[in-house]
């Protein structure tokens, strides 16, 4: 009987741990399936470009979107709304941000690509979202994003949105 009890106790402790193990599992799962629109981390352009088979005739629309959380007193917007891109090539765009306040503020952007299945094929090679951004009082900046839409992007996608939300970093 002690064996049964021991096994049961062990199982419940393991399952408690499993709840926490679900976090890395979920993130991996999201990366594989594009579940929550998070794209994979930073990648170098050369590596990606080597693997591309470019179809010059194909064009997809990449739309840029920016939000600022209501607790952050910044202005933040894309400098261009849409870009026609050929999958497999490197492109660059810029986002404009301005600290409207008289204080230095640090923010961090979250990003999301929709539709989810497109996020699997969206490679950012340079992005302000990889680091925290500090803007001095009234400072304005242009923040570049370079990206490659993978040429393996499935045929059913012809428009995708790259969306950022800037949050105030709580100190």
């Amino acid at each position, binding site marked *: *009987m002690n064996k049964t009890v021991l096994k*049961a106790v062990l199982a419940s402790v393991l*399952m*408690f741990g499993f*709840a926490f193990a679900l976090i890395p599992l979920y993130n991996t799962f999201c990366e594989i*399936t594009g579940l929550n629109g998070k794209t994979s981390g930073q990648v170098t352009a050369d590596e990606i470009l080597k693997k591309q088979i470019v179809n010059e005739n194909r064009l997809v629309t990449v739309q840029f979107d920016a939000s600022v959380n209501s607790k952050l007193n910044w202005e933040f917007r894309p400098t261009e709304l849409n870009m026609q891109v050929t999958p497999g090539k490197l492109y660059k765009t810029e986002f404009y941000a301005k600290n409207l306040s008289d204080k230095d503020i640090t923010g961090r952007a*979250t990003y999301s690509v929709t539709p989810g299945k497109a996020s699997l094929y969206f490679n950012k090679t340079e992005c302000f979202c990889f680091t925290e951004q500090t803007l001095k009082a009234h400072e304005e900046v242009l923040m570049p994003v370079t990206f490659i839409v993978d040429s393996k992007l499935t045929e059913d996608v012809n428009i995708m949105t790259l969306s950022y939300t800037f949050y105030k970093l709580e100190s």
Partner: protein
Amino acid sequence: MSHAAVADTHDHDHDHKPKGFVKRWLMTTNHKDIGTLYLIFALTMFILGGAMAMIIRLELFQPGLQFVQPDFFNQLTTMHALIMVFGAVMPAFVGFANWMIPIMIGAPDMALPRMNNWSFWILPFAFTMLASTFFMDGGAPAAGWTLYPPLVLQGGQNLAFAVFAIHMLGISSIMGAINVIATIMNMRAPNMGYLKMPLFVWTWLITAFLLIAVMPVFAGAVTMLLTDHYFGTTFFNAAGGGDPVLFQHIFWFFGHPEVYIMILPSFGIISEIIPTFARKPLFGYVSMVYATAGIAFLSFIVWAHHMFSVGMPLGGELFFMYATFLISIPTGVKVFNWVSTMWKGAMTFETPMLWAIAFIILFTIGGFSGLMLAIAPADFQYHDTYFVVAHFHYVLVTGAVFAIIGGAYYWLPKWSGNMYSERLGKIHFWWSTISVNVLFFPQHFLGLAGMPRRIPDYSTQFAEFNMWSSIGGFAFGLAQIFFIVIVWRTVKGKGTTKATSRVWEGAKGLEWFIPSPAPHHTFQDGAPVNDEHLAHVSSH
């Protein structure tokens, strides 16, 4: 059972019941006394949670805000669910398990009697803590029993209390489950093979495994809420790189098995009642066991059907839709088996049988709406409407609660030694069954017409059905007060007759071979199990 009932019986000197309230109840290690405590506790919580439901239905009686403020309304819906799920339904089943499992398998007591005491006495403290949040600044948790962040993190100090209460409940449930497993696996009487066990024991064994598998996951999820709120972690905070949807995945990984934790023991109870009053062996005993295990297994791979609207990739939506479809197969097998058990029997319709029949019909209606909800493109319309509210109340009230009440009538004579009044029992049945349908059936229409759930006020187009629903609700609530009166009178022996040891003509199983009321200690020297005692003698 009470002292008065005990005093009425003469031949129980050999019972060695501890004297005095503290020794008898607070320090008890007796499975029957602990079972009684669980049942009384569950009934108390049922009334408390029911009282909240009455206020909710009162506010929804007509459009406009008459009685409570929206924030308090949300507190009520949240606490109503938490109390009914963790305070009423689950402890009631643990009460049945404590009372019946040792007797049914011929064991003298539960395997771990002192832990048994502990797992019960945690509950009152946990619920006092949970209920105390009502009196705090900012009130009780108001984000729904699903506790979705980021909303739940806006709640203030009640979060810490709610989380610790859930931890305590979890520990209590896990200890209870370990006890059930240890008892069933190690303490069966000789000749009580696994495939001779009553189905109630089987369903509870499988439920206990589910509890061990998912209660710790729930504890983990709420712990993450706690650290997000107080210690600056960002598991579910997008600004810090977390994902609020992740909580929903973890929650429903627990939550879906949890709903089966609340229904599998009901299947067990119904499977005991139907053969007794049909005077015919349970049809397809082995397939019932496999169906239960199949439902339990499937419950782990369908969780995201609660989240079709969060925006999943197509593949995920299809997988969870198909997997959910599959559940209807073993569930269907169960329903067909019950009907086949009734078929060509020689039925009588005492109160427990009435509840069991109502269970089959009404639970199946809940199952139908469940199948409809499983269809993702239609769920985009049903999700988070009153259609869902109607669905889960059909499976939980006319499902789980009806089974509990039916089981209470079925075994009450065994527990108390007195036959309840059939006349009052039948009044209680018809009163409840009619009113519960007036209460929940119109909610299907409300949901289809577009009324979202968890709202304190609604557009005038929904007024008519809400009024019907509220009237049904008040009547159903009142019927349960009547139930308490019936139980009280039976236990006190008012207007009742003495129960025989067999109680029901067609009853089979070990519990019917001991006297009524069941003596304080049973099968101390082992149980002599002959195949003719048993309901299920495997002939395969």
